[in-house]
């Protein structure tokens, strides 16, 4: 326990151990616990919105079911696939960071960025489509032939609130990815120290999982066409 920097196991990156840690294990543990705690705050952050969703869906099931049918199932399904693939490429990037394959690390980080960008592009198209069809809540909102226009609008408020918050996490993630790609290209990460890659992987998977919940909740409420919600 009384090891200091000089006695610490050799680490490839001399800047990686910060002065206030005793050894690399302690530093790694701290980062990992920190990241998981941060994800816990993220769960609570999205949790408020999910609570609002469940409260209103419980209160207005019919309006929510019919509003959900207005979403574009195929675009949503496509984007779900894209995001799951990006989680795969991210997991592979972490793997190649751990095994010290720099070239593959960079390639898979870039692939992750491309897939994330594709998701955002498609999402942007979807938003535009909603705008054209007057499905964005607010003064432009129109809902012809809706039985319950007010609560249909509420569904779209939640739709934009939830997917918008999710997309903003993707945008931030893409920004961080750019930095990581640059650092990986410069050879900053080694099998002894690649904590940022690993922690970013956790973040990316978290954002992916949020979408895995959003997709059925927003797109799939009443796709069976039974019209029955019990």
């Amino acid at each position, binding site marked *: *326990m009384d090891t200091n920097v000089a006695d610490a196991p050799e680490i490839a990156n001399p800047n990686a151990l910060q002065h206030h840690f005793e050894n690399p294990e302690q530093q790694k543990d701290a980062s990992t616990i*920190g990241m998981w705690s941060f994800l816990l705050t993220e769960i*609570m*952050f999205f949790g408020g*919105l999910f609570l609002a969703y469940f409260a209103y869906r419980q209160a207005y099931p019919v309006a929510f079911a019919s509003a959900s049918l207005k979403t574009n199932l195929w675009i949503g399904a496509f984007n779900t696939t894209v995001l799951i693939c990006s989680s795969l490429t991210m997991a592979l990037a972490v793997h190649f960071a751990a095994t010290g394959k720099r070239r593959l690390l960079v390639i898979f980080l870039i692939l992750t960025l491309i897939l994330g960008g594709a998701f955002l592009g498609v999402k942007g198209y979807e938003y535009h489509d909603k705008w054209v069809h007057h499905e964005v809540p607010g003064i432009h909102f129109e809902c012809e032939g809706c039985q319950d226009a*007010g609560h249909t609008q509420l569904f779209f*408020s939640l739709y934009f609130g939830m997917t918008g918050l999710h997309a903003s996490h993707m945008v931030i993630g893409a920004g961080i990815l750019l930095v990581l790609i640059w650092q990986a290209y410069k050879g900053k990460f080694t099998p002894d120290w690649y904590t940022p890659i690993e922690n970013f992987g956790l973040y990316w998977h978290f954002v992916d999982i949020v979408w895995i919940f959003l997709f059925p909740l927003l797109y799939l409420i009443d796709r069976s066409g039974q019209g029955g919600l019990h």
Partner: protein
Amino acid sequence: MITAPPLVKEKKNYLNAEEGLMSWLLTKDHKRIAILYLIAVTVFFAVGGMFAVLIRLELATPAGDLLDSNTYNKVFTMHGVVMIFFFLIPSIPATLGNFLIPLMIGAKDLAFPRINLLSWYVYMLAGVFGIFVLVTGGVDTGWTFYTPFSSSYSNGYVVMTAMAAFIMGFSSILTGLNFLVTVHRMRAPGLTWFRLPLFVWAHYATSAVMILGTPVIAVTLFLLMLERGLHIGFFDPAYGGDPVLFQHLFWFYSHPAVYIMILPSMGVISEVVSTFCSKKPFGYTFIAFSSVAIAVFGFLVWGHHLFVSSQSAYAGMVFSVLSMIVAIPSAIKIFNWTATMYKGSVRLETPMLYAIGFMGLFTVGGLTGLFLASMGMDVHLTDTYFVVAHFHYVMVGGAIMGYMAGLHFWWPKLTGRMYSQVWSKVSAVLVFVGFNLTFFPQFLLGFMGMPRRYHVYPPEFQVLNVLSSAGASVLGLGYLIPAIYLLASLKYGAKAGANPWGATGLEWQTSSPPPTENFEITPVVTTEAYEYSAQEVIHVGH
């Protein structure tokens, strides 16, 4: 062979290790960041206090002769927003907690020094938004931002204010995250969980509340901003929403936030009472776990703010019972502190005076909380001055008394100087007397039915209101005097030794003020906390 270095220069410590403004603004030293926070929260305390002065001046007479109703609405809103978001929530954790946690656990710094500095900048950014609202015309929603008034009808800068609170929340989350990881991973060798000082336990529980609660207010304010700014409705019935959902989400954070304010204070009191009785705190584990219990139960009581907001009577009953349960861990603390004092040789130094004040005032605040937790009683007392008096007994009588106790207790450690014993005792007494004179009459006013948040009132309430305003001026004086003698101590105060109070705890083992690296050699802990008889810490060299 003489190798001793010449000891003419003053020993290097965290204050004089580096010089210049940038060495402060770019510091990653938790002690310097604590000082940055200390300055910032003191400024906001003064700002919030000025609004309190306006409120008490207006209420000195029954007529609205100083402020019109709109201005009064803005004044009490800004008082609440500034005091809660900018002072009470960061007050102890970001200053004393930041400074002391690494010292108390024998670490060189918090786990994430850069995030620590970032949290201060985030706080200051929130402050910029807050100040912008102040100078451009304010906001009139009350600090609770209830919809749909806030989202659809208010004329104030709701989005800006919500943004300030939103950003401030991230500063709080970052602080909590840092503490949590630090307590888990940075403890010195031998410092097991049950050897931790109770101050650290209290902050650990606080961090959990910060991490779990604050994101919920963040998303709530995010939705409020969407509704107000972009008409993407969630709460306003005009958009199909339900305003009560806002209240649920708001209080899911804002009630636990009360424990963010009071738990660190309780941690301070545990340290102060033990030190000035030179006794191990009675029931260490009970005090430690009561902090955790308060944090847990604190999340299950928010519904007592909705007794009259269309919540079902059954939900109300459950929340009523759960709210009363919080009184148990709180009472455990009070009983244990008094049991610690029992047959101890109590030294009535300034921090101890504040601590005793805390115990009395917090007990009154807590017991009147039971009145409000009883549903039937609450229907009568909702939105009256009884509620105002209750939470000021907890927030000012509890949280701020604890903050003052802590500030006076650790001031020699922070600065290396002692302050005036006479003046500090005078001000402690003034604060206690002034506080009671200010807020006790408000219990009576509330019980007689005077509603809160009005700038005019019937003439029969004037006597008690004048008493309250008179008390507020004594209280204000009580807070002003420390500002003077504490600042004066920096220049004229006697030098404090490493351990001026004869306290245990690792922070007292290092010099005052501590060196930048906290400990020259990492301490190894071999005893439980608060061993007054066998104060020994074995140092093992590198």
